[in-house]
């Protein structure tokens, strides 16, 4: 029961992007299409899961004084593995995500979970926490990307949704659209979270 809770808390209640405002850079930068958002979410989830497992296993071995450098090395290794594997098997996606793949290293969600959760909990719990937070991160990315791609290009996953004479709201897919979409989505979540304040 508690394991399910560890898993689902990241989806909405403790969503890393919408609620905790972590991992904002990739959430805004690669949310210009759903395809990119899923790719980034998948890569980050993999790194989060692996680093959570390893750090939870090593928690008694790593001295507290040097724990941050150790976490960084562990995370950076997994990121580099993802980077190389993606470059070999998914070169197009790798090019689209570009610099944001190595930057998963400094994604505060991952270091944050390592420090706040994996270093204090059992391996099993850390696995569920990692998957849950990763999915929550992906949900946030896809939600932002959904609106940006739909409004800015009239497409979803590269498939035309709106009729051809639809004049795309270009700004949605450019940089400002990322900020505006995320801000409005956060506001929307706040609105539903506490309806009594209305």
């Amino acid at each position, binding site marked *: 029961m508690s394991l399910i809770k560890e898993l689902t808390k990241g989806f909405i209640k403790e969503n890393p992007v919408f609620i905790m405002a972590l991992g904002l*850079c990739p959430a805004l930068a690669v949310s210009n299409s759903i395809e990119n958002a899923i790719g980034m979410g998948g890569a980050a989830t993999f790194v989060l899961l692996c680093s959570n497992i390893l750090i939870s296993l090593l928690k008694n071995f790593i001295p507290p004084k040097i724990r*941050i450098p150790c976490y960084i090395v562990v995370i*950076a290794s997994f990121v580099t593995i993802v980077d190389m594997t993606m470059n070999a098997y998914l070169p197009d996606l790798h090019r689209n995500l570009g610099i944001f793949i190595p930057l998963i290293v400094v*994604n505060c969600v991952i270091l944050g979970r390592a420090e706040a959760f994996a270093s204090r909990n059992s391996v099993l719990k850390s696995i569920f926490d990692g998957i849950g937070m990763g999915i929550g991160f992906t949900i946030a990315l896809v939600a932002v990307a959904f609106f940006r791609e739909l409004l800015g290009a009239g497409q979803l996953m590269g498939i035309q949704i709106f009729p051809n004479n639809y004049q795309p709201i270009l700004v949605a897919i450019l940089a400002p659209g990322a*900020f*505006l979409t995320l*801000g409005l989505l956060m506001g929307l979540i*706040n609105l539903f979270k506490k309806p009594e304040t209305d």
Partner: protein
Amino acid sequence: MGNIFTLAISAIFINNFVLTRFLGLCPYIGVSKKLDQALGMGMAVIFVMSMASTITWMIHNYLLIPFDLVYLQTIAFILTIATLVQFVEMVIQKMAPSLYKSLGVFLPLITTNCAVLGVSIININESLTFIESILHGIFAGIGFTVVLIIMAGLRERLDKSPVPESMKDLPISFILAGCMALAFLGFAGFNI
């Protein structure tokens, strides 16, 4: 000389790290509530970014390339930055305690500021020369500071404005950032 000017305009306005490249957003949103805090953070970031650009460029070109270890780039860079930040913190604490008082709290946060790792990787990706890398680090840091300070100024005023309950704090800050990005979009067409 013209080259330096081009690099400065490009790094500060056209390819602003925060509003165009989406780097360093966590401190941009997190430390922009008060103007003086924003100023402190900005100064610390300019300093660390220029240092990091210098050292990571040397590590890449004199260590990773000769020994064919380019695949260790991410690990090497992030460890360098973490060590650098630690070192800078100790030096400032010893040499300039008053500066440490104002910058100290921000320094540990900079390790996970993706703008610092970002500038190091962009320097390598765009194969800038040694001097260009250092300048790029400084100018990118200035660009970060400029938008951080503008944002802090806006948010201080926002405290007194009637914002709908559900939009308070974070959501309205993003809308604000969106408006700033819209303004900076005007620089995108510049061809220099």
